[in-house]
Each structure stands twice: as C-alpha cells, then as structure tokens.
C-alpha cells in the first residue's frame, strides 16, 4: 500500500538527514507531529468526517495486516481482523486515550487480541518460520490509492521506526521468547518446552525484554532517547 509514496518521502533530503543523525529534538518533533495527526484524526472521526475514514484505513491497515497475518497465518482471517479493528475505532473513537500511548499501538493491541482469539479457535500452531513466510506472501490486488498526506506517511514511519529502535534494546534471546508469546500465543511453559530452556530463564527473558521495550515504546517511555 502506497509504499511508492513512502519511497518518495524516504528519498527526500529531510528523511536522509533524519535517518543518519536522528537528533533527539528532531525525533521529538516527529513524534509531536504524529501525535497531532492522531488527535486530529480522532476528532474528525468523532465528527463522522468521511475523509477521516480513508485516512484511518490508509495509515494503519498495512501495519495491522502484517501483524494479523503473523498471528493467524492466513489472509482471510487477517483481513477480517483488520476490518474489525478499523471499524472498532471508527465506532468507538473515545476508546483511545492519547495519554496512554499512540493510536497505532492501541490499534495493534486490539488487533493482536482478536488475532490470538481467532488463532486459538482454529487451534493452528504454525512454526514462526512458516508464519514469517506467510507475511512475505505477495499482496493480492492493489487498488490505486489516493495520495497520502505527509502527516500520514510520517505517522506510519514514526510507529515503525520507534518500534525498531525500541527492539534494539532487547537481546536476541529476549526477543525470541517475546515473539513466541506475541505472535504464536505460547505460554511461558510452552515457550520453555519449545526452546528447551528452564522455565525461570524464559520468565526472565520475557520480563526483562518487555520492560526494556516499555522504557522506549511504552507511554512513559515515549520521548525517551
């Protein structure tokens, strides 16, 4: 979806400078712009602005679809989860509390919960490798997209960039355990069995990894550099 436009933005000098230097003030300004966009978007959703519907979908559906596919492992269920998630916030814009974190995070929490329910019902237990491969399946048919505003592109980039930056604080072993829990819905006992690691070790990896993410990606960590 609209990655052509993302590419154009990434080709700009401003983006290159940001990627190379990423000074705190620039990151902070980017975050503020993203928050401002999200607050404005929710206000327009509350006013039932039809243009807000397209902006909501185009800004978040791609991220939510990748997440849903990674959890449920098939396009049909993933599409339904994205549709339900977008409609949930469209019908309940007041459910998002800006002080608790970015709208993209709120939507991800909702989508993952729905996806795990769907996964457990179908009792699928794909390997992480299979699921990752499913993420790589080419998209179906593209629809010509409207041109995204700079604020929408910035909001997309901000969520992913800050997520990648936060994951940089997590060790490989912690991330492995977290991914098994987050994407496959495995419990600590199941993860210990899968990895052949002691239960206490798995608990520590999950706890320490998530607390590291919280310091950078949680509401209290937003703005941390």
């Amino acid at each position, binding site marked *: 979806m609209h*990655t*052509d436009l993302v590419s154009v933005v990434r080709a700009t000098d401003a983006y290159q400078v940001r*990627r190379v230097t990423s000074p705190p003030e620039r990151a902070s300004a980017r975050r503020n712009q993203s928050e401002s966009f999200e607050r404005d978007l929710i206000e327009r959703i509350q006013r039932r602005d039809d243009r807000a519907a397209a902006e909501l979908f185009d800004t978040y559906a791609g991220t939510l*679809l990748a997440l849903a596919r990674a959890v449920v492992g098939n396009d049909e269920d993933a599409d339904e989860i*994205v549709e339900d998630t977008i409609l949930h916030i469209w019908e309940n814009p007041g459910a998002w509390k800006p002080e608790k974190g970015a709208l993209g995070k709120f939507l991800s929490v909702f989508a993952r919960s729905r996806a795990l329910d769907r996964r457990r019902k179908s009792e699928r237990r794909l390997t992480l490798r299979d699921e990752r491969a499913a993420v790589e399946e080419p998209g179906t048919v593209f629809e*010509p997209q409207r041109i995204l505003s700079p604020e929408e592109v910035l909001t997309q980039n901000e969520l992913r960039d800050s997520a990648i930056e936060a994951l940089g604080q997590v060790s490989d072993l912690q991330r492995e355990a977290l991914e098994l829990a987050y994407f496959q819905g495995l419990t600590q006992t199941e993860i210990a069995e899968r990895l052949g690691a002691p239960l206490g070790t798995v608990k520590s990896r999950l706890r320490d990894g998530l607390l590291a993410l919280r310091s950078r990606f949680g509401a209290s960590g937003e703005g941390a550099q």
Partner: protein
Amino acid sequence: MTNHNWEDLAALHAVDALDGEELQVFEARLEQDAALGPLVDELRMSASALGASLSEAVPSAGLRERTLARMSGRAANPSKDGAPSRGAGGEAAGQYRSGIAWVPWALAAAFAALSLGLGLSRQDALEQLAQTEADRDTVTEQLATAQEQLATLDSLLAPLHDTDLQFASLEQAADQPAMRMLWSPSRGRLVFAVNRLPSAAPGRTYQLWGIPAGGDPVSLATFDTDEAGNALELRSTMAATSFAASAVTEEPAGGSAQPTTPPFLVGNWGAAGL
C-alpha cells in the same frame, strides 16, 4: 508476594504468557489492585513494538473497499449523542431514505431524457459504459502491478538504512554459481541474489542455512532459480541471531530440518561496511 513480583507477573500477563496457578493468582490480584490494570495496559502497548516493527503488508483492494463501505454506511447513521452505533439512528436513517426515495428515479428519468436528446440508444450507452469500465479495470491492473513492484523495491532497499547490516558472498569460482546476501538483524530482513545456479531438479529445492559459531545450521530460506539461473529474494528471519557463516544445500522439496547433502556454496558473514 512483593510488588516487584506483581510487576513481573504483569509483564508476563501482558503478552498472555502466564499459565497455571500463576495466571489464576494474578487475575485475582488484578481485580483487587487498581494499579495493576493500567500497568498491564501499558506493557501491552509496549509489546506492540513487535508487531509494529514488521514490514507493512499490502491490504487488498477488496478489503479497503469493504471496510470503507461499512464505515461510510455507519457514518450516515449517527446516534443522538453523535457517537456511532449499529442500532441507534437506524430508524431515522430509514425515514431519511424514504423521504428522498424519489431522487434516484428523478436522476434516472433525467438521464434517459438526456440520452434520447443526444440520440443515444440505451444499448449504445451500455456499450460505452462497459468499455469505460473495461478501460478502468485495465488501468487499475497496470497501477496494481506498478505499485506491487514499488512495494517490493521499497522492502528491498529499506535494510540499507540499518547500521548493523551484514554482508556475505557465497562463491565457488569464476563463472560458477554465486550468491550475495544482505541481512539486517535488527529488522529481521534478509535479501539475497543468486546467479548462474540451474533450477533445482524436480522434487528438490535449494535451502539457505545460517550457521552460528559452534552451533547447528538454522534454516533461513528455501528457494529456486529462474530459467536463466537467477533469483532475487527478500525474506523475514527470526529475531537477530548471530551467524558466522552461511551455506546452500540441495534438499527435498519443502526443505529439511537440517542439511542432508553437502553444501555447494559457503561464505562468511561480515559487516557490510556501507
């Protein structure tokens, strides 16, 4: 149990990893301790970094159209307090619809009169409409193809931004099969290009392995080449694991858990130095 323990359990609960007695104990505590709920919520938001870091997928045209249609339908049915709802406002909307039921008919009549005025038969109009729709579909398909290509290109190029980018070259000798790979551990993205490698035999596939120092090979991908012996692949990998080397073997279709044939391409990983 100390507060510190509750925070630990909150972290495990936030990714739904708690089970057994610990889950029961924590859920009971959750109902009593007003501070725990917000903590779990924040930790859940924090965990969403795992999903948000995935490369963006591409929603189908049908998903977008379906979702926006449902949103649009509900936008026309606001409830009294301005908040949308499935039931509230439905009656009012029905009255609204019946009140303007003559509009489509009036438009149709006007179109028919206009068509007659222009000397167009209904059949002509339908044929022109069909042709216009066919043209639109053609353009849509062309745009879809172009956007798909751009999306792939974007995914291929994105890891070049990463400072931890790794590079490996797997070669035998000049004019022999060769493979070059870029891997972003932080992003979990692997891009590789293969040249001069004939397609795998029927029922067989090529399998790429990552080899940790002193560890067993880990499967990174299965692949095949085109008629010219080339392949260009983009794959997601497990969370960053340190690999000292990589190798390619030929395996039964679908791949193997561990290599079953000797590797014919081997190379070491090193910093890309970009």
